[in-house]
């Protein structure tokens, strides 16, 4: 069958007419397959959700236990029939629980990869390329200027700054789900042993990572720490909190930001960042090319990001390729820090992670 008959775009997101399900729909739908827990991919209010255990748990933490009508757990590598279409969840290496979804029907194999990265990450199961006819890729960092450096070397910039400015707190903006916990793991791997302080918006998600057996060391809430202990501490907060009144409790902090966007000086400057850390949970330019070639796909569909450049490259490489022009994705690597950040203290409703 033609790939478009198996999966095509709709205003709600990718839709499979054969299986009557959506992948990462941006609006509430009767049946959704969710690649990972970032709020631009995982929305509340669907009739039924099929996702990994971790993604279901993360959605419950963010949106409450009633985030969906029915929840079904997908195990990595297990083939599941959805209305006669076979789907398989496979590790995407993006964050804890993230998956690519292989959709198979009548000899046609399509991989919807969600967000992914091939590099090593102690907080997420490792990405593996999946053979397919059509590979659906994001292109958040789909320009040749994006070659992510070694994350350990970037972490070293932070620890070197802690050594040089031991009297100052180091405030690091990081997305509350995934990036924050990965940064903690990187710091521990770099030998940083002090308690890591966090903003309240990432408390429950961080506790969940720890509960899933990911070693993050001692993590404490920044608001519960005496001012004297703030000196020389790493404090991780949502990017928006860097410029919020919340940051005023830290006298003379070093302002850092962990994101792939920090590669571009103008971006870092615009956010008032003094210590840019180029740490990304997305594939960089080289990763995108290597991955696409490794899948052996004949055709590339690009969901969001710098689709023009990636499609141009794919055409030069002899593939069929086209952009899907999908809107609503790419939020967690958003262009600049949101101006109104999540509250530090738990809100009455249980949506205190503020990821929406």
């Amino acid at each position, binding site marked *: 069958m033609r790939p478009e008959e198996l999966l095509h775009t709709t205003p709600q997101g990718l839709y499979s007419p054969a299986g009557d399900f959506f992948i990462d729909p941006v609006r509430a739908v009767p049946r959704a397959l969710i690649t990972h827990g970032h709020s631009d991919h995982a929305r509340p209010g669907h009739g039924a959700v099929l996702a990994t255990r971790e993604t279901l748990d993360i959605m419950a933490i963010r949106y409450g236990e009633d985030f969906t009508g029915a929840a079904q757990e997908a195990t990595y590598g297990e083939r599941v029939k959805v209305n006669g279409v076979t789907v398989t969840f496979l590790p995407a290496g993006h964050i804890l629980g993230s998956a690519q979804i292989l959709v198979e029907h009548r000899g046609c194999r399509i991989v919807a990869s969600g967000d992914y990265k091939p590099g090593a990450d102690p907080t997420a199961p490792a990405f593996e390329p999946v053979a397919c006819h059509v590979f659906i890729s994001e292109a958040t960092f789909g320009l040749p*200027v994006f070659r992510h450096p070694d994350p350990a070397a970037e972490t070293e910039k932070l620890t070197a700054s802690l050594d*040089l400015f031991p009297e100052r707190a180091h405030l690091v903006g990081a997305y509350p789900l995934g990036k924050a916990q990965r940064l903690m793991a990187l710091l521990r791997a770099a030998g940083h042993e002090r308690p890591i302080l966090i903003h309240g918006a990432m408390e429950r998600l961080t506790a969940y990572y720890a509960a899933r057996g990911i070693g993050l060391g001692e993590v404490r809430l920044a608001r519960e720490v005496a001012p004297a202990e703030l000196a020389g501490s790493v404090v991780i907060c949502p990017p928006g909190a860097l410029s919020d009144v919340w940051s005023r409790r830290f006298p003379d902090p070093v302002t850092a930001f962990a994101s792939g966007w920090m*590669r571009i000086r103008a971006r870092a400057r615009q956010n008032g960042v003094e210590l840019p850390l180029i740490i990304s949970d997305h594939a960089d330019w080289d990763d995108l090319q290597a991955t696409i070639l490794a899948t052996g796909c004949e055709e590339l569909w690009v969901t969001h990001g710098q689709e*023009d450049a990636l499609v141009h*490259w794919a055409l030069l490489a002899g593939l069929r390729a086209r952009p899907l022009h999908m809107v609503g994705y790419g939020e967690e690597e958003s262009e600049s820090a949101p101006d109104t950040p999540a509250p530090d203290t738990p809100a009455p409703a249980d949506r205190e992670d503020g990821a929406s």
Partner: protein
Amino acid sequence: MNRFAALLDRLAYEPRRNGKIRLIADYFRHTPDPERGHALAALTGALSFRNAKPGLIRQLIAERTDPVLFALSYDYVGDLSETVALMWPAPPPDTGDASDEGEAAEGDPTSRSGERDLPLSAIVDAFSTMGRSELPAVLAALLDRLDETGRWALLKLITGGLRIGVSARLAKTAVAALGEHAPDEIELVWPGLAPPYEELFAWAEGHGPRPETDDPAPFRPVMLSHPIENPDFAVLDPADFRAEWKWDGIRIQAVRAAGADGRPVTRLYSRTGEDISGAFPDLAGALAFDGAVDGELLILREGRVQSFNVLQQRLNRKVVSAKLIADYPAHIRAYDLLVEAGEDLRELPFDARRARLAALVAAHPEEGRLDLSPLVPFDSWEALAAARADPAAHGAGADAEAVEGVMLKHADSAYLPGRPKGPWWKWKRDPHSIDAVLMYAQRGHGKRSSYYSDYTFGVWTREGELVPVGKAYFGFTDAELIEIDRFVRRNTVNRFGPVREVVHTSTEGLVLEVAFEGLARSTRHRSGLAMRFPRISRLRWDKPPGEADRLETLEAMIGDEGRAPRRPSPVLGEDRSRAEGA
């Protein structure tokens, strides 16, 4: 080079002066000779890289990348050097025949091998020994050996676009921070030194002797003054003090003495000891005295002192052309004499030095390039206040425009380095001020990163529109900063990245009293005006924005510089501490 590039990268993001000093000192501490010396040379401007044109860089990248991908990338990044640094493809694997030295390449630190970094000296050598036609190949080979940050720094260095906010003085202060010496002491030994400064580092770190300076015309640390405050007058006796005009130019130290070969050496130093002779060859070449004169660098045309705005046209020019020299003739108005014919006069009382200075200037008219800054006669503080309020009528005549206040010097004062409190005072004229309306606010850096602390303000045009006339980011108290920040957050009407537009109609908005030192015409600003040294002097919560000043008022001030209405200045009147509180 990669390590030095990493330092430059970090400095480019570091807003604090002390932060920069610590970063540079840390680099010096952990980088061996001679690499750190070359880095110091690069930071102090003593290292010159051959300039490359953007066209060459475009050509190199075009040979290596797909044009569509380059265009998309450049469009995205917005900066040529940065785009090229990031896109530069990894070189093809070394086939082993690339190096002229053959087997010797093993020990060559510039060869591409694992972790080994390309030393700065290799880059300096490469650029100094090659011919013009070799530039593309040499540059490409260097870029092949550097990482992203290294490529960025090299491209910025050779295109002259490196903006990291580090002056030579700051770099020398970082050297001082390696040990116990004061920055002025580094400045004193500096003129006799050359890269890679190994003896300087050894001395600064306390394991080497003070470098001998055999410079016949060294810099002597400058004596500075304190701003005088109202209570000070009550305890000072006018009879003990001499007054002179405080000229609005650049403080300069002109030193001339015979060198080892008997030929005279002339040097012009800035207040911080930077040798600026190269920028004023006309002046340096005209001097004929033997000694060290402290004075003000001014532009004189037909005997009249020009405003600071005119002087600024001559500053910071890369090329000092004959036309620039002819149009902006430089001149020294002498304040003091530190050395005469090898004799150090600094211990003498002011009056004695002044007499020697007067004689020296009289004996050396220097083609009209040197004159004596006149004393301002006064017998009471009230009389001096009157002179300060109206210099034109008290001896400054047509030059009154270039007077920014009066200096008070104790008749017995020795010439002391630094800013001793007591012997010298400055009493600046009151600044101009206008009422302007806050239009945009931007978050600050560092301590102020959560505050909207950079303000763009405007005045009304004839058409009833607000047009921006300047930006200010100091002058207010911490308490006022919190008030303005709250106002900005509550009255935002638009957001552009880190910038917020705040409400500014004739009835709603915040009026700021802005003090400034001068106005000049400018084609860079929509209002056609540029303000010198603007700062917020008061918040006018009481004033409706519609009653703020109009553009015509500012335009009239330009036409009438110097005689423009300044802030009310009762004799020894209001508290002026804020105006000085930069």
